[in-house]
């Protein structure tokens, strides 16, 4: 009995990998924008990981002599020792941008981790158990959905700013969790929708008949089929998280000095935007490229994984 | 008088003359020759069947006649289509548009997706009447109601405002027929009109097409993979295979004495009521050829039981067999050939 189940599962999985994922990968590769997005995403990830190692200086370090030599004005880009210039406190912009990259990439993944951690079980439980459980869970999501996102995040961030969580990682961790707490509803509804339609299919009945436990059915049979849309949702949700973090940092919530979230860099650089625009332009470019690359990658993934396109060239 | 008129038309010229029509699809993997040098004729009021398996080019032929082949990636690469004396392929886009709906009606295969879900069916039927016949809204509505009851939908006037999702599959197909016949076209193209329907409904829809086309003296090209349907509906049949016509003739001639191994295979594969229980279904072994690079041989040769060397080298022409208008594309069945 167990062997047969294993054989069924193994066989089905093997067949699936040659058709669904293989096709999808090939389609993805052909999409130039998606490939570009993917390369940029990988670049950001790498920079985020090795940033501290390759940065010319520590991001918080103030180079007071160089600053003095420049009349206490922010140092322009392409100056010796300061590839992208410095801010008004003499801190190297390139190093700070790399720190910002680390913050943005961390936000991207921590938020999505929270989203999956909450949204997936909620959606799966609602779909699988149906009835009362479904109703209560969906009502719960309605309440969370009704809450104005940014308000909640700001409220949470400011309220708990002085607490241990609030101070962890210079305030960055709290923001991530807060953003995640407001973003999971979409994933929950997606998972629920996917599982609801899959639940009715015959292979579920078959698995039940063989005696596979509920948990296994959901995790081994249903969720893998819903993976496509979930991957797309996670990827397309990242720009929103990056944007939220940057916006919050702009108004001073989240990353605290000396950490250099891109949003904070833009806020700090505002006053010099006419005389030393590099302080705003470079971080803005960084944000723009990050947002766009995840969006293109997400679009490409969605097109590649779209079941309707299966079989078409 | 109408009879005489009809007869005189019949002798004067044909409704449709298709000569050397080729339609190809330009894809990344190569050029797919979906319709390869196809020629046939159709008389006014006649019902012609295009019969063959999936992928043989019958649907593309019909779409080519009305220049609805998706471009890109498809394109009519050569040939002539003369409809009622008009050279269709030389028309401008605008002129072609005026022809569609007015002289050519099209019934598509899947009634579930072929109707616009957000518009009432009365509107969808009346649309072409208003576009081509210049009818006022009221007059078009009247005509739509009339057509709807003609296709067998009761309380037609009340149902004009209903939406497609409020109808069953069979009824939606009836609506499609009403749409196709709205401007009283001379030619009706029916692409597998009953394939997506229940067997019990199929007969009704086919009967409807038959009676209406007879009543309005509309010529019909019926596309189907189902020989039974073809036998019951058509005056003449073109059997298609791999983008070519491989046999053509009057329906009785073909069914009584087909002269091409593929046609035999098709007829043979039909399950029969008088068969011994437990007999296996007969199939034609093998798969249709790749249409990207068909080669010079007879396209059916890889699957043919009667194949000889000549078949593998040179493709036969459509040549005459015994009865009038009965042509087949096979070396073996030609006079003096090796198949009896």
């Amino acid at each position, binding site marked *: 009995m167990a062997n047969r189940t294993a054989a069924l599962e193994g066989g089905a999985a093997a067949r699936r990998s040659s058709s669904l994922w293989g096709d999808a990968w090939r389609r993805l590769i052909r999409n130039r924008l998606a490939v570009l997005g993917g390369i940029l995403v990988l670049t950001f990830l790498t920079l985020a990981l090795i940033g501290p190692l390759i940065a010319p200086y520590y991001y918080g370090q103030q180079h007071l002599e160089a600053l003095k030599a420049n009349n206490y004005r922010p140092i322009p880009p392409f100056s010796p020792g300061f590839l992208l210039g410095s801010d008004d406190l003499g801190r190297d912009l390139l190093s700070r941008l790399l720190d910002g990259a680390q913050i943005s990439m961390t936000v991207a993944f921590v938020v999505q981790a929270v989203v999956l951690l909450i949204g997936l079980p909620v959606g799966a439980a609602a779909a699988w158990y149906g009835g009362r459980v479904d109703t209560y869970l969906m009502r719960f999501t309605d309440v969370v959905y009704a809450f104005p996102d940014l308000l909640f995040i700001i409220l949470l961030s400011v309220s708990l700013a002085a607490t241990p969580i609030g101070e962890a990682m210079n305030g960055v961790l709290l923001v991530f969790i807060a953003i995640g707490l407001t973003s999971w509803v979409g994933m929950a509804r997606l998972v629920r929708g996917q599982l609801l339609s899959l639940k009715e299919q015959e292979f579920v009945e078959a698995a039940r008949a063989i005696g596979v436990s509920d948990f296994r059915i959901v995790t081994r049979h249903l969720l893998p089929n819903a993976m496509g849309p979930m991957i797309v949702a996670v990827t397309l949700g990242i720009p929103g998280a990056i944007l939220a973090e940057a916006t919050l940092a702009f108004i001073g919530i989240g990353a605290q000095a000396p950490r250099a979230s891109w949003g904070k860099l833009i806020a700090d650089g505002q006053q010099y935007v006419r005389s030393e625009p590099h302080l705003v332009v470079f971080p803005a470019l960084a944000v723009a490229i990050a947002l766009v690359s995840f969006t293109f990658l997400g679009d490409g993934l969605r097109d590649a994984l779209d079941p309707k396109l299966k079989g078409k060239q | 008088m109408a009879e005489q008129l009809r007869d005189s038309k019949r002798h004067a010229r044909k409704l449709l003359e298709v000569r050397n029509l080729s339609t190809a699809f330009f894809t990344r993997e190569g050029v797919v020759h979906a319709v390869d040098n196809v020629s046939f004729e159709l008389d006014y009021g006649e019902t012609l069947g295009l019969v063959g398996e999936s992928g043989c080019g019958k649907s593309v032929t019909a779409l080519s006649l009305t220049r609805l082949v998706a471009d890109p990636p498809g394109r009519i690469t050569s040939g002539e289509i003369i409809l009622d004396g008009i050279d269709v392929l030389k028309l401008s886009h605008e002129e072609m548009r005026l022809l569609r709906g007015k002289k050519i009606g099209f019934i598509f295969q899947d009634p579930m997706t072929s109707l616009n879900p*957000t518009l009432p069916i009365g509107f969808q039927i009346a649309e072409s009447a208003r576009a081509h016949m210049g009818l006022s809204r009221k007059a078009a509505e009247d005509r739509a109601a009339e057509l709807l009851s003609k296709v067998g939908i009761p309380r037609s006037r009340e149902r004009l405002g209903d939406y497609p999702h409020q109808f069953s599959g069979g009824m939606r197909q009836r609506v499609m027929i009403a749409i196709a016949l709205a401007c009283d076209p001379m030619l009706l193209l029916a692409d597998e009109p009953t394939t997506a329907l229940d067997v019990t409904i199929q007969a009704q829809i086919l009967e409807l097409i038959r009676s209406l086309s007879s009543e309005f003296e509309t010529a019909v090209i019926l596309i189907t993979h189902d020989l039974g349907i073809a036998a019951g509906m058509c005056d003449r049949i073109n059997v298609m295979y791999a983008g070519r016509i491989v046999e053509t003739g009057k329906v009785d001639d073909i069914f009584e004495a087909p002269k091409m191994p593929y046609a035999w295979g098709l007829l043979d594969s039909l399950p029969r009521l008088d068969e011994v229980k437990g007999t296996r279904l007969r199939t034609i072994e093998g798969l249709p050829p790749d249409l990207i690079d068909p080669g010079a041989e007879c396209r059916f040769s890889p699957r043919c039981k009667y194949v000889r060397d000549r078949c593998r080298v040179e493709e036969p022409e459509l040549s005459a067999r015994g009865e009038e208008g009965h042509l087949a594309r096979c070396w073996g069945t030609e006079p003096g050939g090796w198949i009896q």
Partner: protein
Amino acid sequence: MLGYIVRRLLWIIPVLFVVSLITFGMMHAAPGGPFSKEKPLTKHAVELLNKRYHLDDPIPIQYLKWAGAMVTGDLGPSYRYPERSVNDIVGDGIGTTFHLGIMAFLLSVIVGVPLGVIAALRHNGIPDYVATFISVIGIATPSFVASILLLVFFSVGLRWLPTHGWDGWAKPTAMIMPTVALALFPIANIARFTRASMLEVTRKDYIRTAQSKGLKERTIVTVHMIRNALIPVVTILGPILAFLITGSFIIETIFSVPGIGRFYVQSIGQRDYGVIMAMTMLYAAAIAVLNLVVDVLYAYIDPRIRYS
């Protein structure tokens, strides 16, 4: 349908209730009160103030008092600006915030939808690239960056538009940049979504049927395609409205627009409980009602959807 609308409206009440509970809890969970910071008040003075505003009552009692007052429409006193009640503050600003939000919404639809339609109809042509380009700019530029850039170019650089001074239709030039900055992101999203939806519709069977009827290209696009393409687009209008509502505060801050949004961050930092509660409730109610409107609109456009 009417039953559905009524039920949804009724459902908003318990939701708002829960929202208020959570907000109240979070507010009071934060250390400090409205009077504990900034001004050099003596501890005794702070105690007196707290007593006067009943801030030393147990939290549940405070909540009940607030809830009771709220139901009668009294949003309580503002702690930061003692001369004015929350009703005053909110009353002044809500109209402006609403105005800004609606204008940004209309702009994003009026620009976004045609952009998407034309891009799809001229697929891979010049209009498609232009529309995609604009969309990319829209997704890549956070509203605060757009605001800064607009200010630099049009106010400081070209001196065409003022940096602040929103006064509704009395001063149209002051409305342009805030509206555009807020609408940029929604325009991009609506355009992209509309384009994708239109492209899908062009491939549908019923379009082929329409062509087989010999209808004019323009008729097919306007009568058959657009209607069907817009149906999925309506589904993203809800999140877009939510975005506009919650995101407007940053625009208001940068351009000094006198709406209630700019009190957001301040009031939370200053623990101005009354204002925080009022704003949270208003925003939550607005989002809920607007989502209902969108859902009704959706049913209106798509005849297959009928809520029981």
